[in-house]
């Protein structure tokens, strides 16, 4: 059952990830990106991380995708992406594809050699179910990881201030 769900989710994820980088229109790219995020949330559920799946949908599919859509709306993009031949380096695009496929081959040559260890089943026991729950994550976050947690808060504050400072109109 989990294997079937994994296969279906994997196919949808690969398709939509490819669509993200191949669509000409940024809006359809964003919509495929949302589909990819939902599929990732499905994988997180399969891996027993229910709370992170919910956070994935809220933060990525909810906030980040809407932010992208807002920017596309604000910029009012009409002109299509630049035509071929205006490239800085003529072989840039094939070189990019070659590097991307090369990265994939390097990873896969490590991973595909052995079937790998079986992951523990989801319904193997209460503890496995419990690990992805919000109370366990919260306990870890507020005891062992309290300093990174605080630093993440400061990082978000800096991001808010930086975004406002960058995007506001210059007053001379």
């Amino acid at each position, binding site marked *: 059952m989990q*294997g079937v769900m994994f296969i279906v989710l994997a196919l949808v994820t690969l398709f939509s990830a490819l669509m993200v*980088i191949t669509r000409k229109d940024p809006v359809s790219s964003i919509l495929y990106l949302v589909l990819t995020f939902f599929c990732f949330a499905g994988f997180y559920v399969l891996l027993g991380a229910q709370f992170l799946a919910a956070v994935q949908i809220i933060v990525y599919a909810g906030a980040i995708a809407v932010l992208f859509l807002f920017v596309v709306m604000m910029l009012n993009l009409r002109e299509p992406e630049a035509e071929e031949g205006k490239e800085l380096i003529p072989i840039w695009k094939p070189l990019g*594809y070659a590097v991307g496929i090369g990265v*994939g081959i390097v990873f*896969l040559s490590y991973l595909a050699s052995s079937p790998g260890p079986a*992951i523990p089943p989801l319904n193997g026991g209460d503890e496995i179910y419990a690990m*992805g729950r919000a109370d366990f994550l919260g306990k870890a976050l507020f005891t062992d990881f309290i300093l990174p947690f605080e630093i993440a808060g400061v990082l978000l504050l800096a991001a808010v201030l930086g975004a*406002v400072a960058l995007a506001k109109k210059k007053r001379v």
Partner: protein
Amino acid sequence: MELTLNHYLILSAIIFAIGVTGVLTRRNVLIILMSVELMLNSANMTLIAFSHYLQNIDGMVFVFFTMTVAAAEVGIGLAIVVTMFRNKGTIDVGNFNLLKG
């Protein structure tokens, strides 16, 4: 079919490679940022897969912080995109060659 750790690792490797390809081949800044998001997500999935495999919660906590950094990155990145568009009227990276020697 029995799921193994490598299924998840291979899938996230492929998606990471797709993200790398997107960053290197596209010229629209928005789509480049989206490809970066794809790469961050594939790294997140690797962390969660290992976390589940090792039955250790540290990986999931790390995913939390990755999501925080991704949110901050997108906020700042899109603000920069808006500034770029205001200055040049385009978001094609080929037109941003101010630092070219």
